[in-house]
Each structure stands twice: as C-alpha cells, then as structure tokens.
C-alpha cells in the first residue's frame, strides 16, 4: 500500500528548524514536541506563554440569508444566541444523537459564520453540512486552505499578542478582526489549554513571520503532546477519544451545549437520553497510586478510559473515563485494568487542574 502523502502546514519549515519531532496526525505531518520536551512546554503554558501550530484544524464559512438556519439545524447549541463577534461551542450530531464532531463557531456578521472543525472530521463535516443545507439559501465554503491557525496560550499570551496588534484584543469567548503585524487576522479569545490566550486565524502566507515574531517575544513553541496534557488537565474533550459517534452529548457531560428546543439533527435522541438519564457518564479521574491509565483501558465493573496521561502539573496519572452513571459521583472510587494491573482511581471534579485553585502546586 503506498504511503499517503502527509499534508504540511505553512509552518513546517519553522518546526523542523526548531528541532521538532514531526509525526503523522490526522493526515498531517505535525510537531508532537520540540527539543526541550513536553514538560517544559506544558510548564511554559501554565506559567508564561506557549504557541501552537493548529493549522491542521479546518474552517467552514457559512453565509447567506439561511446561514443561521443551517447552523441551527446541524449544531446542538442555540446559534440564535450567538452575537456578532461571539464564540460558541457546539456538537455536530447524527439523527441518533451520536457525536460527529465538536466545534467552535464564530459569528462574523449577522449572516456570516466561521466554524472550526477537527482535522480528522473536516471533510465529513463539510459534506454533512452540504447535505443538510438542501432547500436553504446558504453558501458553504470549505475554508481549510484559506487559513493558518496559531494558538497563543498562557498567562502572558495576551500581553505578547497585544504588542503586535493594532487595537485591544477580543475578550474571552469573543472574536474580531485585528491588524496583527500589518496583516489582517481573525483573533479569537478561545483555546484548549485551560489558560487565557487567543487563537489567530491568518493568511497562510503571513503565518511564518507571525510565528517567528511571537516566539521571539517569548512564547515557547509547543507540540501536540503538550496540547494533549494541557487540555486533559482542563478536562476539555478530544474528539476520537472522549467523543465519538458511538456516544452522545449527555453521556459526555455536554448537555450544556445542547438546546433540544431548536430541533437540531439528533435533538429527539438527545432529549430522550437527557430525560431518562444516561447509562454511562464521562468523568475526570485521578490515579490514587503509581501508574498511568491510557485510552482503551477497561474500567473494572464497566466502562473504559478514553483519555489518560501523566499530569505534568500534578505529577500523578489523570484521565477521563466513561463509567456507569450510578458510579459517576465525585469522590467515587473505582479500579482500572491497566495492562493486567489493577490501578485505583477516584472520580474527580472538573477541571483536574485550575490555575486559580492551585495553592500548593
């Protein structure tokens, strides 16, 4: 079988020059870590600032008189509540209420939206949205080639990006156009690390110079491995691990992102699960002793780990697991079969790590 050609982001040369380990990820050749290692990158984001190339993520632009109607149909959240310049998290579900993707949508103008997709789901998401647009007056543009995406995250992130912006940056969960280093960028007050920061959507041709400047100003280049440990400490879901077509939003603890009254695709199924109560729930956990649970490890008595790692901030094994709903309460003890060894775990509260709650860390 021929090796499929991996796509490269506009920052590929920067990553290689910076000593990144590059790995295949969702069809892209992406930096998993740089020379100083995952821990150093993780700590940089928790204490100062890191920069991530997330250009593998996809963009879908929807516009026209029925753009809002389309998004109301396909997204689980209530798009009518999304103001111009706002950001909203939602899921894309099938009729059975299984999760097809999780995504952020930004309202750029009254009838124009930008939705950011997961790399591995992008093509299917675009096809799904086109199918669901039958009879609607909406233009759906696959914007993946139009943008590079950089995430600058950490307590110093805003200060660093502010220094190259023509005007104040959008607040958390807001988005807007700014001139960054003389070039237009969509600046979004969102992220995937549990820290404050921004995500920058820029022209691919501007990406490399912007990356270099932000690094020069003190943001540490961070790879996908640190992105994963950071998001897991913050208890953000990863599609393909914690979310899948096999499970629904209620099981995943994402009922807050579902407004069944909008009648989105899958709303009836989601409503039924919400009313009856889910059979399983996704819970964050910590390992009580030594050992690290990993994705796929069975929970003894039912359920499975969907994400697991060592928490660089806490120094212990952490993760998320689906467990029977009656055993999902914070403080509940359970056991995980980690490659034949029984490891004790306890259901924790979200987030597993919070900047504000750390008093002795």
């Amino acid at each position, binding site marked *: 079988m021929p090796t499929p050609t991996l796509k490269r982001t506009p920052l590929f040369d920067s990553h290689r020059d910076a000593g990144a380990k590059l790995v295949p990820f969702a069809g892209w050749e992406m930096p998993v870590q740089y020379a100083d290692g995952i821990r150093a990158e993780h700590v940089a984001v928790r204490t100062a600032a890191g920069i991530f190339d997330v250009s593998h993520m996809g963009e879908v632009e929807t516009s026209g008189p029925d753009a809002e109607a389309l998004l109301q149909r396909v997204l689980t959240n209530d798009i009518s509540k999304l103001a111009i310049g706002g950001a909203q998290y939602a899921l894309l579900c099938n009729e059975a209420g299984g999760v097809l993707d999780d995504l952020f949508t930004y309202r750029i103008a009254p009838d124009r939206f930008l939705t950011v997709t997961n790399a591995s789901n992008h093509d299917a998401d675009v096809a799904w949205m086109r199918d669901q647009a039958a009879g609607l007056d909406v233009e759906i543009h696959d914007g993946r080639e139009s943008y590079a995406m950089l995430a600058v995250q950490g307590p110093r992130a805003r200060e660093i990006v502010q220094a190259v912006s023509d005007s104040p940056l959008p607040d958390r969960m807001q988005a807007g156009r700014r001139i960054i280093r003389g070039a237009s960028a969509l600046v979004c007050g969102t992220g995937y690390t549990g820290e404050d920061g921004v995500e920058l959507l820029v022209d691919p041709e501007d990406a490399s110079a912007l990356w270099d400047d932000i690094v020069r100003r003190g943001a540490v280049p961070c790879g996908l491995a640190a992105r994963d440990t950071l998001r897991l400490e913050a208890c953000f879901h990863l599609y393909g691990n914690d979310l899948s077509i096999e499970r629904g939003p209620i099981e995943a603890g994402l009922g807050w992102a579902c407004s069944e009254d909008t009648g989105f695709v899958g709303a009836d199924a989601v409503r039924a699960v919400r009313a009856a109560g889910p059979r399983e729930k996704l819970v964050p956990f910590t390992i009580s002793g030594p*050992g*690290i649970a*990993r994705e796929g490890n069975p929970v003894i008595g039912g359920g499975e780990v969907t994400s697991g790692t060592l928490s660089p901030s806490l120094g212990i094994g952490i993760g998320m697991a689906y467990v029977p709903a009656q055993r999902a309460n914070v403080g509940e003890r359970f056991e995980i079969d980690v490659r034949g060894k029984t490891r004790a775990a306890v259901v924790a509260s979200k987030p597993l790590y919070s900047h504000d709650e750390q008093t002795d860390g």
Partner: protein
Amino acid sequence: MSSGASYPEDRLYHCEHDWALIDGEVATFGITWFAQDALGEVVFFDPPEVGSSVTANEFYAEVESVKAVSDVIAPLSGEIVEVNTALADTPETINEDPYGAGWMVKVKLSDPGEQDALLDCENYVSSLS
C-alpha cells in the same frame, strides 16, 4: 534529557534497544540512548519482582513517557536478583543516565550462551542507521 547519542563498547545490545552488561553469571539490563530518546521524558517505571524469571526477547517491565507506555525487552534469560528501586522516585534518570544510574534490573543468567545472539556496539549502532 541526555544531550547526545552514545553507545558504550563495554556491553551487548538487543535489537529492541536494550543493553546487557555481563559480569560473570549476573547481567545488568537497561535501555539504550536511542530508546530513551524515542520515548521522550520517562515518567514511570514499573519494575518486575525480585525472584521472578525473565525470558530473552520477552518483556519484563514497562516504562512510560508522558505520551505512551512501552515494554522493556529482556536481552537474556534468567532470574531477577535486584531491581533499581531508585527509579520509582526518579524515573527521569533513565533519560539522564541510561547506561549508569538508569539501569533497570540485575539478572542471574540461566543460559549465558544466549549472548551470542546479541549485537556488539558496532553492529547495534549500524542497525540504527
């Protein structure tokens, strides 16, 4: 992280990136610079028990980096007579000093003839390229 690749000539190597330093009928096992570099920062070492037996080419311990778990393969067969208990608290020693303080177990060899199947330094290094 240790800075540069190194492969001491005083020991034998298994193609799965493990080393054995033989002293009479006892050998010390560990993983090579290449292995620790591929793993990244080691955060957990799960040792076998003293008295248990290990079989050449089969795994006897687990080593975990932030990213993933890997099996550690025994280069030779025998009985575990000592484990490096210091690695429980400082598993990063495996990165920092893979051939010294990062050793994993000492094994009383049951079949010293098995070492003929291992690689010397030169052959191991050429297997990496």
